[in-house]
């Protein structure tokens, strides 16, 4: 089963995402900000990255830009968590190589559907 790296500075969102994904049989790695995520992604293969945008130390946009520079992450699906009110955030994500996005707030079922869509 695929390994998913979920990146969010909010513990409750991280818990909710991990719980949902683990329940569906995915392996889940958690990171608290972009820097943490970059370190964890370097350690081992990750099949999908799901990241929040606003985080301390390193934001989601920078994280995606940095990950895309790594040879092993050139084609890995990367999704951003974004709010409905920010279409420009979706565009900003795409500009640095994000695969797609998941609109907040989301229902656990929607999260799973989105992950399935990105992993195919």
């Amino acid at each position, binding site marked *: 089963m695929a390994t998913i790296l979920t990146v969010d500075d*909010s513990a409750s969102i991280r818990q909710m995402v991990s719980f949902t994904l683990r329940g569906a049989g995915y392996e889940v790695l958690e990171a608290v900000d972009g820097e943490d995520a970059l370190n964890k992604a370097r350690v081992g*293969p990750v099949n999908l990255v799901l990241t929040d945008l606003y985080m301390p130390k390193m934001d989601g946009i920078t994280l995606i830009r940095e990950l895309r520079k790594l040879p092993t992450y050139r084609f890995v699906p990367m999704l951003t968590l974004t709010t409905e009110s920010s279409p420009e955030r979706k565009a900003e994500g795409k500009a640095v190589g994000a695969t797609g996005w998941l609109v907040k707030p989301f229902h656990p079922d929607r999260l799973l559907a989105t992950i399935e*869509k990105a992993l195919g």
Partner: protein
Amino acid sequence: MSIDLSQFHQTFFEESLEGLETMETGLLNLSPGEVETEAVNTLFRVAHSIKGGSAMFGFSAITSLTHVMETLLDHVRAGRAGIDRLLVDALLAAVDCLTETVLAMKDGGGHDDRHIAASEAQLQSLLPAHSRIEVFRAPVREPTDEPEGKGVAIGATWRIGFRPFPHLFKTGNDPLRLLRALAGVGKLAVSADISRLPAFGDLDPESCYLGWDLTLDSDVGRETIGEVFEWVDGDCDLVITPSSGGPIPLPESMLPVPEADHHEPVLYDPHPSGHAHGEPSRTGSERRQPVSPGAEASSIRVSIQKIDALINLVGELVITQSMLSQCGQDLSSQGADNSIGGRLRDGLAQLARNTRELQESVLGIRMVPISFSFNRFPRLVRDLGHKLRKNVELRVSGENTELDKTVMEKIGDPLVHLIRNALDHGIETPEERRAAGKPDTGVLHLNAYHSGGRILIEIADDGAGIDSRKILARARARGLIAEGDSPSEDRIHDLIFQPGFSTAAEVTDISGRGVGLDVVRRNIKDLGGVVEVRSRAGQGSTFLIKLPLTLAILDGQLIRVGEHVYVIPLVSIIESLQVRKDRVSSLAGTAELYQLRNEY
């Protein structure tokens, strides 16, 4: 799959309260007029984060207020709104309101909608007119199973022309996944367009050269198909047409499409043997071990009862160990000094050492940095400063000094009292300060440090100091000091701790009611501590609090009087001395006097 979101609520409350604390500190550190991008960014991020969480878990009251905060902070961030006192006050009020709301929700209670609305209105009034927000609604999206009925006939055939741009793979998207998704909603016929495929030598394996013409038999609407291609919008040419046959109209950029390059349409095979591009496949054996998700947690929350139970147990253990030591000594003194006795003594000595270390470690659990108590003071000083129209700068040092949690909880109120006093009576108004040749802004210094097994807390202001003459006059009027008596400066200052002793000219709602410093002294005494004051007229006052590090365990000195043994707490012993017989004199055969330092 149904997931109970309420299991994440406690985490959300905890992190929100933490975030709100961060916001409060951040807001207090913002200076009006100044633009500190990083500080504003942090505020924005926290508001955004709480908004996101509250929307996720359905706390709409919190969502709507944090949304306005976020919008306002976004304006500040973009330089469209300035930082002034009005803004900081409104944001602080909102933080208070949110803290109250979250605490109420955490305890399972209701919240005050009017308070939230009022706070929201206060923030709204600071927003530029055009960007006021009417109502914010962020419903959780429930997936719907209802068929889409929007304008499309059921049972239609869709023809889709899909020509990805060469860079498509670099966004992490894969045409294969899109085709699979389409195959999941209907019967899909696929025809590949290989017209753009270059000669093998020129082929870049990381570019996408293929295009597809798709025919989808499905009763889904255009929206569902659009959603499949949502993420590649801008990374491809896409034409979706409802069709009963005929050629797919392609935009100019996709032409020409030579017939010869079209392969025969094949029904889509969901399990293709190879990948379209060179992403390496992974086998199970290459998979890494999962990193423990709890690795970032460096502390745990434990209820205070558990710790106290542990401390009590260790207390009992210390007593048992003392008893055993005593037995060991008695055994030795009775001459049982054989090899068993020697081993017993060694064991008991080791037990004594380990018990002492265990006791120290366990007591260490109760120790918390005094910053837990100090953290509330920046806000207090700011608000009081406003109210009194005084400029006060709070300096804090030694905030990492540790002391017992119980002591810290009980020292909070006395500290608040002393700080209020310093602001009300100590530090002067800017005009008075200027007249005295001091800078407009007064300084209140809060300092904590360890010394001689005690913790010392200093509250120092650079205000007017204590007016000795005024105090002396009042003390004489109250009969506390005799007319002819001229006490030392220190003794006069100490009088302010007398009950009902206030020299404040008028009673304010901050301090000056005369109930005060005596209560402070009593509370500190109850903790086994003392409070002293040093003051110099015109230069300021310093209150010094000395406290024991812990209340859980008291070291004492055993005293035997006749047959009775008493324990005197070490903290209560000022001095101990060895009595010399030649210094004892009898007084008329009934009483005895001891001569110490040439006095009786």
